[in-house]
């Protein structure tokens, strides 16, 4: 029997580069056949395990995970995507508001009360401001008078006190 296969012969045989002497030896040497089978089994095990690992790794990635490459790819259309999102949000809110407003409009009392409430509220505000003015005048708490400063009539305190709300 010829000597056992060398590393080179084993590598060549597993690489498909077999020569006749190698095959002849394998036909008559159980040890070398066993060695070849063991190597093949190890390679197959590593092939299957590493492929399973790789597929699992890909499967576990978030769909929208932006890597460095994706960051570069997205830079061109990111503003467009943001604008589209903002527009979609605005449309949704507009639709929700419209539906809600129509529901209120179906009830005429609700709509009328909204308008009258607004006008009445302004009138109440003006009455309150006038009452405050009168109260302050009666107390004579003007800073110019308190600190002996002559008032020209257009100081911010005076202007602010005259600012009543106007009805629409």
């Amino acid at each position, binding site marked *: 029997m010829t000597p056992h296969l060398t*590393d080179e012969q084993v590598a060549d045989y597993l690489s498909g580069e077999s020569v006749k002497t190698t095959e002849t030896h394998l036909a008559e040497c159980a040890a070398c056949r066993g060695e070849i089978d063991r190597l093949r089994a190890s390679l197959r095990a590593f092939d299957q395990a*590493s492929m399973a690992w790789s597929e699992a790794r890909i499967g576990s990635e978030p769909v929208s995970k932006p890597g460095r*490459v994706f960051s570069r790819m997205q830079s061109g259309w990111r503003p467009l995507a943001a604008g589209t999102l903002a527009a979609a949000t605005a449309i949704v809110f507009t639709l929700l508001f419209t539906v809600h407003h129509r529901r209120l409009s179906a009830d005429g009392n609700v709509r009328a009360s909204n308008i009258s409430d607004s006008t009445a509220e302004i009138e109440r505000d003006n009455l309150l401001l006038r009452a405050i003015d009168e109260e302050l005048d009666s107390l004579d708490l003007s800073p110019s008078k308190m600190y002996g400063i002559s008032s020209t009539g257009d100081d911010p305190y005076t202007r602010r006190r005259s600012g009543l709300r106007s009805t629409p």
Partner: protein
Amino acid sequence: MLVSTHRARLLRLVTFSTGDQDLAETVVQDCFLKAYRARESFRGDCSVSTWLYTIALNVMRDYQRLQKPHFWKSAGLTAVDLTDASSALASQEPSPETRMLAGEQANRVQLALKSLSPKQRIVFIMRFLDEMELQEISATTGMPLSTVKTHIRRAMKAVRSRLGGAQ
């Protein structure tokens, strides 16, 4: 379809040749981006797989130039945990003992890869895992055929030695 078919194999090649899982994912993404941009230039004179592998190796060279001291991480290969992946063999192996043996064999080959040079790892994976022809490996890597054979012999010798079978 192109991505789903080849991505796992590319990720495996880059991960187990560089030893860096995160870098491998970036390289693979870059590879597909370059392939998409260069799709018009693909003439069909080689397989899509070979074309993608060539692009991936070029991307790896680019990254290697940028971060050479840290690129090839032989120690990082231990970071790839094949234990869970071995459980995926459950449907293919008949008994728990056989599954456990297959898991041990896979881990030993992985450890053996640590002792190989980066080029030996690439050639080893292409030949014995992806079953590429020697001529195809030569065309993909740009190495002469004789160099590819030399790498395969040295890689197999190292792996065989690590597996405890060298005579």
